[in-house]
């Protein structure tokens, strides 16, 4: 077990005790868990404030201001205008900055949409019959059939899901109702895959903590 009588050792001990305190909630709600939770929240808030000052406000605003670029004071005025939301008389001032920010975000968002999704729209046009070739130049029948099947499945899924999200008319027509229902089932399969990934992610975090406890703290796992 790591000795707690050095700086590195004390840090590991603190980390290990905090981990155990937080995991103690799995047994039952208890004061040790509450204590650790509040310490964590306090530390995270303080660190967030410090890092905001150190990495954002100090280099990009304060340093510029003290270097003589006085116009940066206007950002403080604009930021302060947000707080007029609490005054009935001055609330119009907060709306000014909000409207400006909304306009900016909308413009940037529009550009961002094209950057992110235009390629995907292009990539959704897939050939339904794919011919794959082997290295010798012949036709790879198995590969071609599988690639064609994948593309057909992609198209069918896309049509079904888009039909499900088409709300401009009531889905009374039987084929449309069936297609939309298939779209819902296909989405359920996708959500299942997503949930499986989430379980995998949470277990990874658990393994990370186990490794810390049993490798760095009590040296039961060999590195």
């Amino acid at each position, binding site marked *: 077990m790591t000795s707690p009588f050095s700086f590195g050792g004390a840090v590991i001990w603190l980390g290990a005790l905090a981990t155990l305190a937080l995991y103690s909630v*799995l*047994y039952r709600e208890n004061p040790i868990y509450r204590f650790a939770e509040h310490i964590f929240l306090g530390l995270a808030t303080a*660190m967030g404030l410090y*890092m*905001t000052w*150190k*990495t*954002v406000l100090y280099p*990009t605003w304060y340093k510029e201001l003290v270097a003589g670029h006085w116009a940066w004071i206007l950002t403080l005025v604009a930021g302060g205008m947000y707080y007029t939301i609490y005054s009935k008389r001055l609330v119009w001032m907060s709306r000014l900055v909000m409207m400006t920010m909304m306009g900016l975000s909308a413009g*940037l968002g529009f*550009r*961002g949409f*094209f*950057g*992110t999704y235009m*390629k*995907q729209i*292009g*990539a959704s046009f897939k050939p339904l019959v794919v011919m794959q070739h082997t290295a010798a130049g012949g036709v790879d029948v198995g590969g071609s059939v599988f690639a064609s099947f994948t593309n057909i499945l992609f198209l069918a899924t896309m049509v079904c899901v888009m039909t499900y999200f088409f709300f401009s008319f009531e889905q009374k027509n039987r084929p449309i109702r069936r297609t939309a229902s298939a779209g819902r089932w296909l989405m359920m399969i*996708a959500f299942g*895959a*997503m949930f499986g*990934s*989430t*379980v*995998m*992610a949470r*277990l*990874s*975090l*658990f*393994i*990370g*903590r*186990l*490794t810390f406890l*049993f490798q760095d703290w009590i040296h*039961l*796992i*060999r590195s």
Partner: protein
Amino acid sequence: MRGQRRLPLEQIIGRIDRRLVYAGLFLITLAPLVGRWALPLYVTPPPKMLADTINALPQDKLVFISSNWDAGTQAENRPQMTVLVRHLIRRRLKFASISIGAPNAPQLANAAIEQAIQLEKVPWVYGQDWVNLGYKLATEPWLRSFVRQIPEAVKEDWKGTPVDQIPVMRGVQKFGPDGQASMLIDITGSATIDGWYRYLSPTGVKLGLGCTAVMAPEQYPFLDSGQLSGLLTGMKGAAEYEQIIGAQGFGTTAMAGQSFAHLYILILIILGNLSLVLGWLERRRRRR
């Protein structure tokens, strides 16, 4: 005890104390880690694509690693970062780490990079072969500026040294075929990749991603459209990449624990459903 009615199986399963379930998960996950049990692991195409892309990069250009993870997703992102850096070092590709997602990410990135250098046992010198550019507040104008003219957006490294005094950053102006930066790999526990899709992807620059398993399903359409040149999914992605470059690390060791835990959860799901089905059959029998 005589006279006491035995509980039916479905009720026994339904009454298992949740603490026993947790204890089981704890033991099942820990045993493979302590015993170093290894399970076979196969490599899927997305990490292979990333490795192939890195193998094809020119050696005279810089690779950017956008390191956007913190302690919360360390178990998934740190092995990804370590193995990718190891691959870059083996290929003699110089790199710059930059963080836009978490203010404390540069410290963690630095530790992971130093670990990778130590594991590779090569003199990979800070400033000459790699640099940590620290945390930058990635507003939309900053992202746009970074993609167009790197020196306009990055003035100093994480210790405050001006970039024009750092040899590895000298002459690095922009991304792309006529630029000095060949690729950006985002290793992230949050949605930072969206910013790179918006601004870097339209320039045609190679973009790689190492993300948490929660995020991965949403990223496959980007892989399909070619906006991503490769993808590492959580700890499994790191383990697969370790297999590809032949460098066993934390990912490979931890995957045995992960697989046993998955098996345990599958058994619990079957037991839970068995309890429900048996209860339903019993109620139906009584109604008759």
